[in-house]
């Protein structure tokens, strides 16, 4: 009993620092390209100018006080929240499909945690040197050199973190003005708080916590494993080839070429450990597929480099499927997309994207909401006429000032009374309210169940929208 208890793992495990070795190869180039592109877009986009009539000249501006999102030529209002829902849906399905096809590609190449960690490791590498130098620095006692190098690394990390946070804030207000206000202490409190919180969280997540975010914090990394199937391509170590009959072994004299190794029953893996040294998650891919693996492909690059130097065939660690690796004679790895799930996801993405594009392209230039006044539903006037009242709310979503004309169909001319506001002139993004009343003689009122209210911008009469409205009278009273 006692012995069993003593074997239990501690609830809390201290982080073991990971010093990744840099590596060259196909996947490293791809990751660097994605990093460069993503950073270029993220850091430069708030500075892209865009001429607008009545809004700051910024291509992408999330104008929260104005309750609108300015996205290049498009102005998105809160009423368009369905687009956000569609976008999130498409993103989620895309993640499901890609994960089903090639595993955690998002984690390995596109996730901001991976990108920023990559950038921070690059800074670390630039200041402190390659892996052995960093390990040495880590182990040596604090002295001037260690203080300067480690301090410099953290200072640069903080700088990058701050600029990341500041750029984020710049998406929400006119960026050039923000720089001025931020420096002179005039910016909104929200700007300072957001910048502060994001600076700290970026620094902590990408500098200090790194792979712990993926392992312990991130829910996506965990639930993506549910989407793996036997056909899914993932980063795998070909254990059959690597271990042979008697396991892996270093390339000592007498077991250096493939023929010599195969004769001895040794696998192709020369146990150089490079795949472990380059891994940003600190795992050994040769232990098999594991939840900590973010499938960044760096171990593939590392292994291929070694295989090349020994003149062994590449691909001891490669993208392959569980199914293929288990087959008696593994075929060339290929993408298995002809699966019900993948095709279903694909169809969903195509349909939803088409709907989103259709919805954006055919969006009206104004939003209208017409409600009948319900207190009271109808009024009997002194000559016996019945009057119903309606509240018309129009939001101008066009980029110019518009004048809206309101008329009715299905009731006699003159029955519709718009009071003092026969037309509504609205600035872009503004909402106006008109009170309409419809007055019908009792006989006609009894026959009229509904009528049409037609709202059209004067500048663009073809964009008329009609609303079917109910007309109430005393006989309808229960």
């Amino acid at each position: 009993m006692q012995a069993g208890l003593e074997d239990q793992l501690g609830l809390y495990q201290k982080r073991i620092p990971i010093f990744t070795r840099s590596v060259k190869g196909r996947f490293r180039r791809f990751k660097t390209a994605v990093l460069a592109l993503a950073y270029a877009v993220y850091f430069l986009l708030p500075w892209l100018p865009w001429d607008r009539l009545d809004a700051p000249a910024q291509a992408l501006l999330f104008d929260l006080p104005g309750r609108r999102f300015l996205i290049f030529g498009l102005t998105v209002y809160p009423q368009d929240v369905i687009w956000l829902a569609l976008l999130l849906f498409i993103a989620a399905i895309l993640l499901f499909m890609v994960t089903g096809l090639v595993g955690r590609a998002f984690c390995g190449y596109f996730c901001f945690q991976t990108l920023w960690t990559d950038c921070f490791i690059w800074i670390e590498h630039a200041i402190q040197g390659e892996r052995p130098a960093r390990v040495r620095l880590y182990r040596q006692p604090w002295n001037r050199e260690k203080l300067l190098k480690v301090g410099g690394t953290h200072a640069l990390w903080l700088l990058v973190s701050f600029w990341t946070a500041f750029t984020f804030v710049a998406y929400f207000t006119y960026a050039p003005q923000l720089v001025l206000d931020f420096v002179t202490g005039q910016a909104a409190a929200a700007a300072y708080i957001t910048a502060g919180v994001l600076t700290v969280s970026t620094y902590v997540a990408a500098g200090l916590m790194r792979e712990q975010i993926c392992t312990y914090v991130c829910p996506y990394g965990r639930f993506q494993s549910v989407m793996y199937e036997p056909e899914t391509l993932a980063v795998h170590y070909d254990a059959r080839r690597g271990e042979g009959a008697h396991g892996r072994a270093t390339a000592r004299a007498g077991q250096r070429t493939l023929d010599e190794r195969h004769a001895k029953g040794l696998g192709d893996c020369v146990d150089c450990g490079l795949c472990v040294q380059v891994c940003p998650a600190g795992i050994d891919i040769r232990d098999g597929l594991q939840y900590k693996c973010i499938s960044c492909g760096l171990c593939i690059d590392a292994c291929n480099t070694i295989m090349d130097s020994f003149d062994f065939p590449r691909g001891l660690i490669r993208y392959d499927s569980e199914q293929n690796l288990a087959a008696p004679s593994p075929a060339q790895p290929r993408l298995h997309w002809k699966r019900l799930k993948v095709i279903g996801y694909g169809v969903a993405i195509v349909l939803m994207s088409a709907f989103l594009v259709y919805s954006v392209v055919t969006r009206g230039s104004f939003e209208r909401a017409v409600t009948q006044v319900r207190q009271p539903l109808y009024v009997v006037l002194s000559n016996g006429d019945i009057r119903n009242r309606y509240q018309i709310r129009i939001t101008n979503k066009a980029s110019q000032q518009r004048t809206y004309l309101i008329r009715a169909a299905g009731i006699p001319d003159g029955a519709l009374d718009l009071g003092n506001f026969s037309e509504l002139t609205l600035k872009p993004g503004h909402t106006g309210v008109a009170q309409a009343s419809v007055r019908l003689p009792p006989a006609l009122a009894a026959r009229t169940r509904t009528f049409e209210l037609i709202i059209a911008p004067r500048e663009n009469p073809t964009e008329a929208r009609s609303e079917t409205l109910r007309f109430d009278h005393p006989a309808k009273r229960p």
Partner: protein
Amino acid sequence: MSEQKLQSQTVQTTGHAWDGDLQEYNNPLPAWWVYTFYVTVIFAIVYWTLYPSWPFGKGWIGGLSTITYVNSEGETKTHSWNTRALLMEDLNQAAAAQKPYFDKVSAMSYEQIAQDPEMNGFILSAGKALFSDSCAPCHQAGGQGVIAFFPNLTDDDWLYGGSFEKIHETLMQGRRGYMPAFNEVLDGEQIDQLANYVASLSGVKHDSAKAAAGGALFRSETAACFYCHGTDAKGRQDMGAPNLTDSVWLWADVPGAENDDGKLAAIRGVIAGGLAKGVMPAWAGRLTPEQIKVLTVYVHELGGGQ
């Protein structure tokens, strides 16, 4: 993974031994947890100093954080932080935000306010809030009133006049409607005749012989209805006597009656019993002049303004 395996997986003991061999495992809390705990302790101390915290004597320690507001008497008060003071401060801020609009209201004429799109929006929202607070208990949320109790403000029939000026006067000084109980001077037959006459004026089903007799009675000194309602029964707005010839009913619940007899009975009831419930309170002094002006335009725009 291989490095992790090097980590010791045995749990240390605290080093004490009781009863010979009873030992206690030492599982220290993770450092991040302990630091988070210290931070919460520091947070609590900062919180005590800023906000009301400890009971003290009959009161409590108010804390250093204060809120300054102007109360309804116009006095500036500074109080330690509490939600009531916070509400007062919020109300002050809201009033300050509304002030430019109310200033415009007092500077503009009724017609100007009603025709200005921006002011119209303000009247709709501020007027609705004021109406809901002060008027809706009687006149109902939409101003539709209650038959036999409170007049409908959304129709085009007015007891005291539906111009801006008349509505303003009604709001400022209030109204007191009165009709004597006629069962003290008339017998049942005469009241029935009068009821038939009143029904005939609005096209309600009636006995024409009785109506003719009622018409004569209406204009006679016996009943003397015409003193207030006029010889043509169209009412007199200067004294709040309703027009009896239109389709709008206020006191007699004719539209709600089950049948024609019920309609006549409703009219008879009003004539016999009279009315002393048409009382509207005066709002001058209870609301500011600007608020009354906003309400004037709001009520005028409910649909019946003249």
